[in-house]
């Protein structure tokens, strides 16, 4: 499989300083938040890479960097051989073609669909924007086909979003994302707002569509069971960094980074009925003031000498990439 998306040392810093006047009068310093720090990974064509981690770890920022909603502070995002910068900076043929290939599905289907538009118009918007079909009857046919992909009928196109349940709305979002014949879908917590039985419908649909259309997914979630179900490879993020990334079976089966292990231990397991769970210590530190060295060191049960002094490099280890002194140290 060829590499479709490539992130090289991508970082994103947000300026969260007080307003200029306050800085001058109250002598407040400028402050910066490093949301994503030196992240590199590849996504191969046709596979699903999932990013997991707790709130505020930078998962969604990575998604927005890839889709081009943010420009990286340093590093580069390459999609299908082209730098995403092109898609952002210019409006020529190549830029539009690149934007057409990359689409996004958002978390909240109640907020991501325009309540004043009919579903058919919502689904047709990407087609109109990219001028893929101009003939009205062909457009109608295409919209009906798209609605059919997500198990809705052509008649549903005449309705408004409020006439649909959460799961149906998320299916409409998927139909809209598919409208421009994309090759790569970024799904930012697509099932987090849904009930489990509806989540199962959406996950099954996403898997079917991937198989039929050869789509590539970046799937972002904090739910590890969902990730285990849908992903081929998994990246675990903590405080803006990818701490472990590799094949799903390797990462979940034999986690090497203590944070991955901690996340796996924290999941309420249906099989564990009645048994005590592993208690987890501490909370995610403030990203404005991250701890020195490895960001996880204050919570890490296996912390030792170098952990709070220098930041561990990402190295290949037992079939995955991991950034941890403890895991990779020769014993």
């Amino acid at each position, binding site marked *: 499989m060829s590499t479709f998306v490539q992130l090289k040392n991508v970082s994103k810093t947000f300026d969260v300083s007080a307003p200029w006047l306050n800085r001058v009068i109250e002598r407040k310093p400028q402050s910066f938040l490093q949301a994503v720090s030196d992240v590199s990974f590849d996504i191969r064509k046709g596979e699903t890479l999932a990013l997991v981690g*707790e*709130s505020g770890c930078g998962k969604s920022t990575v998604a927005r960097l890839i889709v081009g909603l943010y420009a990286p502070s340093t590093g580069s995002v390459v999609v299908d051989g082209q730098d995403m910068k092109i898609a952002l900076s210019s409006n020529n043929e190549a830029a539009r073609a690149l934007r057409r290939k990359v689409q996004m599905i958002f978390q909240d289907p109640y907020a991501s669909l325009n309540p004043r538009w009919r579903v058919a118009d919502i689904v047709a918007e990407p087609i109109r924007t990219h001028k893929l079909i101009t003939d009205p009857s062909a457009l109608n046919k295409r919209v009906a086909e798209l609605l059919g992909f997500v198990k809705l009928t052509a008649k549903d196109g005449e309705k408004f979003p409020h006439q649909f*349940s*959460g*799961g*149906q709305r998320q299916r409409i979002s998927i139909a809209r994302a598919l409208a421009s014949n994309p090759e790569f879908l970024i799904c930012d917590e697509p099932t987090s707002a849904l*009930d*489990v*039985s*509806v*989540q*199962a*419908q959406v*996950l*099954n649909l996403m*898997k079917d569509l991937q198989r039929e259309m050869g789509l590539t997914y970046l799937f972002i979630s*904090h739910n*590890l*069971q*969902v990730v*285990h*179900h*849908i992903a081929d490879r998994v990246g675990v993020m903590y405080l803006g960094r990818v701490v472990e990334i590799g094949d799903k079976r390797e990462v*979940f089966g034999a986690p090497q980074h203590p944070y991955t292990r*901690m*996340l796996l*231990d*924290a*999941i*309420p*397991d*249906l*099989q*564990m*009925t*009645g048994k*005590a*769970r*592993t*208690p*987890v210590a501490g*909370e*995610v530190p403030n990203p404005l003031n991250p701890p020195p060295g490895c960001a996880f060191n204050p919570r890490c049960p296996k912390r030792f000498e170098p952990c709070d002094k220098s930041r561990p490099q990402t190295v290949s280890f037992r079939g995955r990439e991991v950034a941890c002194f403890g895991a990779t140290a020769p014993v």
Partner: protein
Amino acid sequence: MSSPVLEVKNLHIEFPTRRGVLKAVDNVSFSIAPGEVLGVVGESGAGKSLTGAAIIGLLEPPGRVASGQILLNGQRIDNLPYEQMRKIRGRQIGAIFQDPLTSLNPLYTVGRQLVETIQTHLELSDVAARDRAIKLLEEVGIPAARERIDHYPHQFSGGMRQRVVIALALAAEPKVIIADEPTTALDVSIQAQIITLLKRLCREHGTAVMLVTHDMGVIAETADRVAVMYAGRVAEIGPVADVIHKPQHPYTVGLMGSIPEFDSDRERLIQIDGAMPRLDAIPTGCAFNPRCTKVFDKCKTTRPDLMPASSSMAACWLHEGKV
């Protein structure tokens, strides 16, 4: 088994609207023993939270308890006047809500809110109440409670805030706690901490807990018994291990199958086609019959009551006359 501390009998909750009366909770009965955790699961709109709200007497109009009884230690509390209910709420029934940010007043320090709650229910001096507040914060695992007590809610993280809310619920040592999605807004690692805390506290204090959630995993870890709700009705109720491992109602079977699990490598999840019916269009007979894979004639005409099914109770005609 000791006598139940909380009993709900044939509870009906209705919403009168212009287009007719909507039955949001329809003939729900259950009881909780002291020290027991009853999990209530179901999808959005199944009536879980409304049942909880009815028990603490905080049902928002136009919703009303149409019939049925709610008994606390054998005493009816569903027909009490507002002022009397106010004394029971907090003193005997505590509540923990989903969003820890909105259940705390952002303008008051955590200590002031705790002291106010304690003094409302217990006759304690300011100093004694403050001491008790500090002890409560220590009990729910807030480090440096003596300093943290004078902080405002925004100075706490989400998990710590939820601990404060739990401390508030425990302030007057209630006999029953209604916990409505207490961990839904939290990350998994924090969720684990809060569940462990809730379990320990209710074991130590012998508090009965009604845990409302849509997360089966949380129920599996915490509850002793579980009630599965569907379209305002209890579909199945029984010991947690039985309901999870040997579900009897087809809805529970589908619900369990739709949860992705680690040790299975299923290509597809079991999905229940369709969606839960709207309250104004609940089908006759069993509410689940249009989505059920095992539906037969009787399901479409006659509504099943809870009947013994294996070691649980299920409202499903498949189990008629089997036990």
